[in-house]
Each structure stands twice: as structure tokens, then as C-alpha cells.
């Protein structure tokens, strides 16, 4: 039983990162019906910016660990949001009236562009975050070892999801986003500035992705310019499992994917872990083609 619970906590920790990245995919898809393939690379950019800012500002030494990291996180989210806005302006807005395939190709191109830009700026080597920033405390409950950082990551992801959900459901801008998601033309007729709404979507989603990149860097230590590919793919899968376009769905999808991976590698085989995860994706899509929470995609966002 200990073994089972240990694997569950492992799975939730991995899954909560997938979940935050998945939120970005799901938001963009919900509003634009576009899979933003460059989202994984915005995640990478977040990880690298975090490291650069950490080294350049030495903020954690100046104002103390927790507050410093909070400020760092806000800076990273802001800068990645800027990158997201630029991405939307350059790669997607000119193609908004074009067939959907053009935007998909543009997204793939943007992904390759970002990946190469990171490679050229930072080099191809692994970069490593300092080891002593985060507390490495491990608590043991009934034989299950849980690093405190994992609980914090899970808590941060839940907070981010809740904040995003509140933002979409309860604020005026959120209402405008939902209206745009349902029908862009009708939203325009109602006096909604669709361009601005889309720009906001492309700030929020990438900001969350950037924060996830920062968390991965801080927690696992090692970052590389190709890391966005694996996380992007997994988060995209998570968004589909949960029902793409649905915010709680992305969160639940991420956690389920993390759990399936952990339990699959625990009870079946480690080498088959990814095959099992994608097998579950296919099964879910067979029985619920819109994903677990994906009914009435647009309205639910």
C-alpha cells in the first residue's frame, strides 16, 4: 500500500506540471480553435528566462528565498506573456482569416523558431539551476516520502487553475473571452474588441506555461532547449484527455496523465510508460470523443 501511495504522489507531482502547461493549450484552443504548437517552447523560454533573471538579479539573496522566487515568477510570467503576445501578432493574427491549416503550419514554424532561438542564445548544453534555493525537506507519512516542494508545486498549480477559472467565469474580460470563444462574429457585433480578447488569451496562457517552466527548472534543476517538446506533447495530451477547451478539464487531464504514467510504470513496465499513457488517451477518446469534461466545448470555457 505504501508503494501505491508513493506512486500516487509521484504521479500527482508530474501531473500538476502537465496540468499548468495544458491550461495554455486549452485556453488558446477554446478561443481560436488553434493548437498552439509553440506553447511547449514558451515553457522552455520560461525556464531559461528564470535562470537568467535569477543569475542577473540575485534576487533570492537580496530579499530572501520565498519572496524572491515570487518576484522572479512574476517577472518570468510577464516576459513570457510578452513573447506570447508577439507570437500572436506575428504568427497567428495575419492568418486569422486563412484556412485553419495555415495557422497550424505557422504554429509549427514558430515552435521551431523559438527552439532554435533558445539554442543559439543559450547554447546546446544543459543549463543547471543552483541547488540551494529551494528547501529540500522531505516529510514521511506512514512510509510515504513526500518532498515538500512537490506539495508546493501541486498547491501552486491548483491556485493558478482556480485563479484562471475565476478570471474566466467571474470577470468582465472573462465573459468577453467566453463570448469570443462561442462566436467571434457575434461577439464583435456585441461590441467586444476581439483582437484585444485574443491578445489577452495569448498573454495568460503563455504566462502560465512560463511559470511551469520556471517550476521545472527550480525543482528538477536541469533544463535544456529541447525540454519543451516532451512537456508540450504531454500537456497537449492532458488537454485532450480532459476535453480540450475546458479549463478544469486540462487540470484533471494533467493529473490523470501523471497518475497513469506513474502507476503504469509501477505495475506494468517503465519502458511501456508512454505507450500506456497514450493507450489511455485512445481509450478515453473512444468512449468520450470530446474528452472527460469536454461537452459543449466552447460554452464551458
Amino acid at each position, binding site marked *: 500500500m505504501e*508503494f501505491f501511495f*508513493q*506512486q500516487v504522489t*509521484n*504521479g500527482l*507531482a*508530474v501531473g500538476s506540471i502537465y496540468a499548468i502547461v495544458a491550461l495554455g493549450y486549452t485556453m488558446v484552443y477554446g478561443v481560436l480553435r488553434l493548437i498552439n504548437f509553440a506553447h511547449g517552447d514558451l515553457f522552455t523560454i520560461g525556464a531559461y528566462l528564470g535562470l537568467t533573471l535569477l543569475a542577473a538579479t540575485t534576487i533570492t539573496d537580496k530579499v530572501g528565498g520565498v519572496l524572491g522566487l515570487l518576484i522572479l515568477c512574476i517577472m518570468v510570467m510577464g516576459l513570457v506573456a510578452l513573447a506570447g503576445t508577439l507570437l500572436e501578432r506575428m504568427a497567428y493574427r495575419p492568418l486569422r482569416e486563412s484556412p485553419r491549416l495555415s495557422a497550424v503550419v505557422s504554429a509549427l514554424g514558430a515552435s521551431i523558431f523559438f527552439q532554435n532561438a533558445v*539554442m543559439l542564445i543559450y*547554447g*546546446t*548544453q*544543459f543549463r*543547471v539551476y543552483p*541547488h540551494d534555493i529551494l528547501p*529540500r525537506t*522531505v516529510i*514521511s507519512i506512514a512510509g510515504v*516520502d513526500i*518532498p515538500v516542494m512537490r506539495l508546493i508545486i501541486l498547491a501552486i498549480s491548483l491556485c493558478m487553475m482556480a485563479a484562471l477559472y475565476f478570471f474566466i467565469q467571474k470577470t468582465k474580460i472573462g465573459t468577453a473571452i467566453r463570448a469570443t470563444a462561442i462566436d467571434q462574429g457575434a461577439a464583435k457585433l456585441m461590441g467586444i474588441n476581439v483582437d484585444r480578447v485574443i491578445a489577452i488569451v495569448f498573454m495568460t496562457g503563455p504566462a502560465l506555461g512560463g511559470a511551469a517552466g520556471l517550476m*521545472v527548472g527550480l525543482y*528538477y*534543476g*536541469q533544463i*535544456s532547449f*529541447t*525540454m519543451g517538446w*516532451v512537456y508540450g506533447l504531454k500537456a497537449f495530451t492532458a488537454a485532450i484527455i480532459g476535453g480540450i477547451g475546458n479549463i478544469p478539464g486540462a487540470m484533471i487531464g494533467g493529473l490523470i496523465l501523471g497518475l497513469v*504514467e*506513474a502507476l503504469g*510504470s*509501477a505495475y506494468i*513496465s*517503465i*519502458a511501456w*510508460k*508512454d505507450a500506456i499513457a497514450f493507450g489511455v488517451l485512445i481509450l478515453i477518446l473512444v468512449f468520450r470523443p470530446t474528452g472527460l469534461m469536454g461537452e459543449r466545448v466552447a460554452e464551458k470555457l
Partner: protein
Amino acid sequence: MKKTAIALFSAFFLMAGVASAADTVKIGVMGPMTGQWASEGQGMKDVISIMADDLNAAGGVAGKKIEVVVEDDAGDPRTASLAAQKLSTKGVVAVIGTYGSSITEATQNIYDEAGIIQIGTGSTANNLTEKGLKLFFRTAPRNDEQSNVAAKAITAAGYKNIAILHDNTSFAKTLADESKAIIEKAGVKVVFFDALTPGERDYSAILTKIKSVNPDAIFYTGYYPEAGLLLRQKMEMNLKVPVIGSDATNNPDLIKIAGAPAAEGFSFVSAPVPQDLATPEAKDFTAKFSKKYGKAPASIYAVLAGDAFKAICEAIKATNSTDPKKLADFMHTQLKNLKGISGDISFDAKGDRVGSVYKVYKVDAKGAFVMQP
């Protein structure tokens, strides 16, 4: 006017072409200059550039200067086959490289068909020299030799239950399979045998599974980026079991990723780096390298690339020829005990390096690699 310009222009290029063909010998270097193993490829380039400069300053070989042509294979078999095709058209006599067995394997036939000598530097999988390719050599030792040394280290330490973890690359998988067979014969039980996915960040699910079978030690046969993460996460999970690595973990980046406290006590099997060797060649090379780059050579595979360079230049010098067939014949039969940086270099009939070079290393509390006696 225009015509004269064109004529002059083409004459210039023709002459340039003739000139370069006449007084240089081109040697190709194919390595992972980008990608996850980039530090290995950059190291190869650094080492060979020092040796080529030295040689050229001393007048080159057989009256000709050496020209090094570098091509990036990104540590990826598909890119590598393109790099090999590109190098084949550039008039190189021999190609040094590359790191990674599956990447080397993707290029072997291309070079063989083009009649170019290839000297593998970090490709240890057994089958590479079992194909009967007359122009393929390697300065890297073979996997089966490494399996023997690793198995010996494991049995000598008195471990009874071993967890073996690989990463499904052809190098790591063969090493894992062979070591398993040898240590099982010696009466050690293999309680866990599986593969992780390279390139991921979180290996806690695997470590939890290993913890549940309670082994005396973990033998990880894959590469250093994952080994670093494994060590770091192992410490976080309070899993106190020694880890033994393959020679692919012999890279200082491992310590950067894991952090010294997590890496302490980690041991691995590897050919020795030159700063641990007492031979004059090793000392001389370490001094030269440190002078130029401000640090000792980090990776043994970069050094083995230097030895490959030494071997091919020796063959050109001795035969006074750049005919690959002649050079290969010389290297197979007459090149004996050439003083290399990593030790004496001789090749057997298959193109494998003769003699054992493996040592056991251990990481100390400061995160330094210490060669064990």
C-alpha cells in the same frame, strides 16, 4: 570586360581548388556539436584542433598540412547519416567519430561505400566491428570489455541483489544485457531490469519501484544527463543505495546536474582521463590542453578522438600515402603500440583497440572524480 572578370574569377577558384588539393590532407571530424551530448562533440573539436595545430606547426604529415573538416551529427542517427554523406563529398581521407553507438552505426556503411576510413571514438557497442567492414576502426573500448569490468566491480563489492536500469539505446541495452548475464553466472541476483525514457525530468516513479525491490546497488548503463537526475531524485526520496554507472556517465556535467551531495559515492567504470595517467604523452597533452582552454580535458571520448587522430596521422606518415586501403592495412597489421594519450594504441583484425583500459572511478564529497586503484 565582363568576360575577363569571369575568366579571372574561375581561374582563381580553379587554382585555389588545385592548391588546396595538392598540399593538404583532409581529415573529417563528425561529432555531436549540438544536441544533448554537445559537450562531447565540442570536446572532440577542441582536442583535435590542438593536435592538428601542433602537427602542422611541425610540418604536417608526409609533407602536407592537415586540414580538419568538422561536421555536426547532433547526436542523432538521421542527422548523422546526412553529415556522413556531406563529409564523403568533401574529399576527406578519414573520419574521426562519433559519440554514441547507434549514431555511429547509421554512418558506417556510408563511409565504407565511399572508401573512407572511419575511427569511432565513443561508440562501444560490440556489433560495430563484427560486420567485417575493413575501413572501420575504433579507439573506444568495446562494451563486452566494459561489461566484464563492471561485473567484476559489482561482484567484488559483495553485492547480492542488483537493480539494472538502461535507457534502450543500443549501447546501454547491450551493456545491461551482457552485464546481467555475467553477474548472474557469478551468483548475483538481478532483482530489477528495465529501461527509462531519456530526456524526461522526473524519474521518481522508477526510483520508487527500485526501492520496493530493495537492491544492494543500482547499475545504470545509460548516459550522464539522466544519471545526474537519478542521483538527485534518489537523495530526495531518502533512497540510500549505491549507484554504479557506465562510462557514458563520465562527464563533469553529471555533478552539475546532481549536485555534489547527491553525487557523492557514485562510482562508474570508464577509461581513464589523461590527467589520471602517468605517461609522458598524457601529461604533455593535459598541459597543452589546459594552457589553451584553461581547464583539463573533461571527457575521455574527446581524448579518444585525439588518439584516433594520432593513429591516422601515424598511418599516413608511415605509408606516405592517403590511399584508404593502404592506410587500413597498415593500421590493422603494422601499427603496434603507438604511444597515445589514453595509452598504447594497436588495432586487431576487426579494427578493435587491443588491450584493456577500463578503471573504476568514484565521486568524492567535493564532487571530483577519483580513480580507484
